[in-house]
């Protein structure tokens, strides 16, 4: 499929060296996106975590061991594996900014997109969401609740983008040229170590424009060619190495 280039490219940059794995982003994400609490959170294969923090290590024995944390939202790939496979156009990459949409009322729940995504960024509503009594009063107005049986994923808190555009319109500004910091996903707002940066990487006035050019910036699985809109930064060689598969002879 033809890859569409947009004038705006909403880009997340995560500084892995600063992530302490505290989990605030994951909690905030659930609150913002109305993900019902899950009693058995330890079954990582059935829980819904649009934002998931992975634990990485350098594979060495004590005392050479080092570890790191890698928060994984949806990569909003430029060349997404999930979009072309959807049989019912429930997921697209067609909006200015390049956020990969996931439309719950359209989704039939075939899970082909989940099989296609190597980042495991897509989740399935295995059961109807149930909030403890009363907790539905703390639902966020920003994300619709989903019935069981549909696929869902991180969308960079997309309705915050819509809110920011509405605000720009109200102030007589161009809704497609938002100033840096007007549009912030919930995970960024919650991150106490400032590991997450966000903005339009095509806009030189946005911080991420330069951050993605940092010498330590990389993306996950670049060799497969999915062109993610999420970048990571780490000074540590071993972390950067784990961003992609390398043949033994290519490792240093």
């Amino acid at each position: 499929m033809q890859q569409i280039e947009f004038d705006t490219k909403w880009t997340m940059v995560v500084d892995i060296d600063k992530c302490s794995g505290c989990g605030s982003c994951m909690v905030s994400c659930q609150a913002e996106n109305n993900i019902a609490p899950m009693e058995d959170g330890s079954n990582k294969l059935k829980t819904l975590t649009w934002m998931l923090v992975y634990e990485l290590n350098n594979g060495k024995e004590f005392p050479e061991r080092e570890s790191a944390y890698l928060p994984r939202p949806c990569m909003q790939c430029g060349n997404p594996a999930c979009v072309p496979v959807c049989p019912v156009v429930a997921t697209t990459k067609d909006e200015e900014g390049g956020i990969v949409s996931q439309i719950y009322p359209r989704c039939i729940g075939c899970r082909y997109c989940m099989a296609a995504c190597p980042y495991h960024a897509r989740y399935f509503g295995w059961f109807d969401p149930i909030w403890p009594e009363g907790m539905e009063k703390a639902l966020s107005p920003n994300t619709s609740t989903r019935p069981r049986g549909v696929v869902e994923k991180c969308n960079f808190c997309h309705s915050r983008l819509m809110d920011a555009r509405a605000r720009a319109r109200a102030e007589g500004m161009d809704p497609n040229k938002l100033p840096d910091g007007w549009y912030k996903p919930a995970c960024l707002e919650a991150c106490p170590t400032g590991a997450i940066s966000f903005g339009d990487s095509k806009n030189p006035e946005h911080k991420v424009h330069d951050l993605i050019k940092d010498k330590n910036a990389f993306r996950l699985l670049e060799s497969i060619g999915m062109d993610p809109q999420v970048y990571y930064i780490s000074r540590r060689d071993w972390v950067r190495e784990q961003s992609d598969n390398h043949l033994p002879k290519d490792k240093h």
Partner: protein
Amino acid sequence: MGIDRRTFIQLVTGGVVGSLFTPVIWKSLDDAAIWSQNWSWIPRLKYGQITEHATISKFGPSPCSLMVKSVAGSPYVAKGNAENEMSKGGVDAISAGGAQLLYSPSRVKGPMKKVADGKYESISWDDAEKMLSEKLSAVKGQAGKLAIVSGDATGTSSEVLSAFAAGMGSKDCYLMPGDEQAAAVALENMGGSGQIGYDLDNSDFVLLVGADAMNSWGSVVRNQRVYADKRPTGGDIESVYVYAGPFLNSTAAISDKWVPVAPGTGSIFSLGLAYHMLNAGASASVADFADFKTLVMSRFTPDKVEKAIGVAPGVMAGLAKQLMSASAPLVISGSEFGQGAGAVDIIAASALNMLLGRVGEQGGMKLLADLPLAVDAAASRAELSSRDFAGYLAAVATDKVKAPEVMMAYEANPVYAMPQATTMAAAIAKVPFLVSFSTWMDETASIADLIMPNPHSFERFDDAQTPYGVGTTMLSACAPVIEPLYNGKSTVDVILSVASGLGIDLGYESVEAVLQAKAEKAGADWDSLVEGVAYVSDSTESDSLKFAASVLSKAVTMPKGGEIALAPYAKLNVGSSTMAIPPLNCVTVSKFELQGKDLFVQINGKTAKKLNASEGSTVKLSGAGGECVARVHINEGVMNDVIAAPLGFGHTAWDEFSRGKGDNIAKILTVGTEPGTGMAVWTSSFVSVA
């Protein structure tokens, strides 16, 4: 012409064919699909004006200033409050779900009295207060009959409680254990006053000895913010962090260097560094410098230190050199899990700061002045902090001290969270009348005789002064974001009302008045405090400290070695000593810590071989006061002969999100007494493994 079968079939066929040309099938199909978007049993969203209010959350060990977003008056998401100096715009993993916690299934919905074991009956506030008053009037004026424990180290509410205790004639008003206790005792021994603070903001080299600054030490969220500011994404590192501790925790993971040091041996590590510094000519013009030098040079030589804590002399010398060459180095010591460290750990680390000339300096260790007390009869902060609740309970457990007639627990869950938990819980069980002021049905509430629920953080007035660890004196306050959802009542209001009934004049009518007076006395503007701006003051104490060499000499003992040491760690996402796993946090628990109901402890491959354990195998860990069952995760980020184990699991009360998950490591902590200071300590716990 009658209708035969054939005619009927043809009629039906006609009907079916005809229906294809009507909207019936197509519209029904479409509407059914639309129905599936809006199933009535899936809740709808609420719309309305979106507002933001500042508040303080006290779910974690350290207060966090938040901006809470509400839609049509209902809070739904919390973010950090960047205007507030106390937490600098950060938010911890519990507070991030603070809005959802309003509706936690664990909330106590109104005052209740115990009618039988595990059975409670709702009563009115009037009845509850009457019941409490009766019990209290019976013990008024008698020492040793009333004990109060508060889990809120920063709030003026604890001041009110201590003043009330004083009015009742009781000296037994305590804070739950925390690093500030060791710091207060240490400062007393070093001849200082006020509160030890660390100016992380202006330091360029931070050595954290044990202190897990990203999870449990000091003002965690603030530490994280300062760390982040010093290491801008894509920019140069402005401050080097080194972590010394037994476990590659997340502080170690994001530090520039991790120095593995055996658990509970922070003082030896610090004094080992002092050796190298003294060797390099460091000194300090302090009365007992000579004693200190003699002590260090004789007992903490590189080979002895290596034998005791497993750090090679080269590593120590290198680190000492790094510290001495940094322009604003800072050494911070604390327990690896935020409690149970001895005063000597802090004295030893302070000695390093003294040798580096960093006491009272920008980016160094500070002696912060206390804010004036709001309630005159209250104990000073230093005094309240230095009181030893663990020691008290241990004495009650062994009948060295008679159990009080009434015990009141405010924002505290001692039945679950005290070290050697089983022993301590047994001590609490001896109390005839236990009152819990908890917002939650925690372990303490669930055995209490009377529960008088305090409203949730977002529903009440509260304040927080100078959390332990920060570098300046400060004060924050908040007003309710939302009307109380249930029938809670601010504990301070309850105490004020009960006190006046008992003829104790605390000088105020309401919690709001107390907090406003506190702000006024501190010189802060109440309105701006409530809007979320912290009051900050530079005032410090100018005492000159001494090394307390005599205390060090008595209190530092070299470990025997050869045993399996326990390295507990606390992570905020699974809760704190006052909070069990919040509903939204279940998914944040690592699969290396909990799977289903099984708790995982971590050991490295070498230790595993020694213990004959393998990935996933079940072990029984026994300490002095109890046992825990856990499974093993092999993690090379743990020192040899050390078991790293997460605190915060094994709840027996609360709700389905935390109850029965894993085991409570606090049970196998062993409480000992620190020679020289006499305080209860439990950072060096050894376990036997079966």
